[in-house]
């Protein structure tokens, strides 16, 4: 049951004025000496009763509305349907290669970035309820689009990433910017960072701590779609040799992501088919509805009161226009 509050409760002291129509001196009456003669003419009293009740309700509405009633803020359990997904896309120069590790420079075969773009656009088309944001990163991150439901804009933004990539794969600032996208947004669905990259990079320990803190504060799920060259290391089946952070940063990145304390999955894609499969898996994972509490702001009720007073007042006005004010006197 919502609680009702009043912004100016002092007005309510005027509420006894609503009984004015029922007081005897409030009636305008015409003196008429010959009521005894009118016994043959049918008498009705309901219009007068109705008029009094309407006037009383009208005054009550006005006074109550003047005191600005509002429904206090309330928490409502909601079931979030759409996820908030920030596509964090690697835009480094290595994305211009195809899955075999060859650089075509925009030739007939599909580059990794083109395949990712195509599949992401299909993914976006299939999820009408979700909000999407786009962050691209190479050496430095770029916020392409904040969270929005405008599918045209998102598809255009993802399509614009087809420009030739450049620079290095610098994951940490990209992730930080993707996390910033969620800050200040209401939590109405699961939050997902879909990281699409073809490699990893070393992240400083203090940056790692900060990112972990942000992931936990903002409750963001992380899905990493790792577009692996056939020659690259596999994070799911790490080679049995001794690895260093410079030779195989992806493995260490994977290990770091596992310590984030938020749901995390990694998908390795070695060709467009497996990339499609990875994205389909993300889709099934993020279809779950998310129960959450939404805090509704207080709602001002006085416009409804004034509206009701208007609805009551217009017939009262016409009623008053029908009143006969002079007869005998």
């Amino acid at each position, binding site marked *: 049951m919502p609680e009702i509050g009043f912004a100016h409760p002092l007005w309510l002291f005027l509420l006894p004025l609503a009984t004015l129509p029922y007081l005897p001196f409030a*009636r*305008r*009456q*015409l*003196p*008429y*000496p*010959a*009521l*005894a*003669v*009118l*016994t*043959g*003419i049918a*008498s*009705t*009293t309901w*219009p*007068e009763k109705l008029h009094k009740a309407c006037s009383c309700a009208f005054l009550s509405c006005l006074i109550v509305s003047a005191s600005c009633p509002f429904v206090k803020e309330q928490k409502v359990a909601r079931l979030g349907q759409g996820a908030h997904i920030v596509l964090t896309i690697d835009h480094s120069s290595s994305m211009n290669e195809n899955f075999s590790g060859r650089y075509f420079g925009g030739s007939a075969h599909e580059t990794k970035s083109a395949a990712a773009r195509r599949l992401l656009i299909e993914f976006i088309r299939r999820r009408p309820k979700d909000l999407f944001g786009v962050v691209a990163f190479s050496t430095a991150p770029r916020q392409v689009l904040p969270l929005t439901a405008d599918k045209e804009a998102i598809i255009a933004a993802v399509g614009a990433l087809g420009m030739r990539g450049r620079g290095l794969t610098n994951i940490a600032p990209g992730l930080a910017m993707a996390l910033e996208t969620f800050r200040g947004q209401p939590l109405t669905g699961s939050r997902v960072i879909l990281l699409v990259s073809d490699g990893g990079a070393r992240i400083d320990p203090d940056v790692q701590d900060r990112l972990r803190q942000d992931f936990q504060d903002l409750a963001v799920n992380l899905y990493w779609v790792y577009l692996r060259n056939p020659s690259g290391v596999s994070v799911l089946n790490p080679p049995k040799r001794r690895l260093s952070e410079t030779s195989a940063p992806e493995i260490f990145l994977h290990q770091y992501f596992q310590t984030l304390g938020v749901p995390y999955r990694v998908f390795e894609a070695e060709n467009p088919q497996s990339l499609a499969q990875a994205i389909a898996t993300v889709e099934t994972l993020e279809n779950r509805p998310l129960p959450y509490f939404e805090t509704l702001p207080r709602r001002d009720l006085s416009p409804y009161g004034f509206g009701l007073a208007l609805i009551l007042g217009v017939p009262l006005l016409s009623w008053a226009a*029908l*009143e*006969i004010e*002079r*007869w*005998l*006197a």
Partner: protein
Amino acid sequence: MEEFHYRIPWRSRNVHPGHHRSQIQGVGLEFRGHATLIDYPDPRKLDIHASLHDPFGQHKVKLFSQTSLIPILVVADLSASMGLGTKPKLLSRLAAAIAYSAYRTGDLFGFLGVNDRIVLQYPLRFSKCLALELKHRLEKGPFQGKHLGMLRVGPYLGRQRALLFLISDFHFALTEVEALLTRLKPHDVVPVALWMSREWQAPARWGWAKLYDPETGHRRFLWLSPSSQAKLACAFCNRREQLIALCRRYGRPPFFIEDEFYPEKLTQYFLETCA
């Protein structure tokens, strides 16, 4: 000053000479019969013709009825309903006309103004200036309360049969009118109904009015339409017929004054009712 002529269908018993036929034998022009000179020793009225015809040889004298005066009384309803519209003015004109006519005819005049009790009383008297005084006094009159005091005026009216003008608007139940007329039965009552045509000429438009009776405080909600004037007029028409039928049973039909008082109409009324 307005005046009218009035006459009565009955004989006065007042010994004072006046204008009306009476049962008192005395100096007059109306022949009553013969009596013996022994009984009425007035040789001036000796009737030789009758004396010669008398089988007993007695001297006969003629007897005449004198004309006597009658008391004129006005019982005026000063209740709240009489204070509306032009009624006070009509009432004062009418009362003044009666007072002045009584003076001119040579009759005694008395006035009783009544609402809940008797609020204005002029006992029977000959007075020339009473008409003027009443005229000014009644326009201001204390028009308030109910008409119930009229049922209690009996003891103030005197024992002689009087011509009594009962002035009211008769806007109360017919049973009450009947009770009133019953109590005033010893007198010759002329009911004068003061009505205003505006009482049934409602504003000719759609609307409603909350009416209250200033006497009883009864309230009534009334829908008005352009056709309701006819309905109201019909109600008043019925009322008029009922009043006429009722008052006829107690002697005279009522005299209606609507909006304007014409003294000549009152004269005509007396000519019609006392043929």
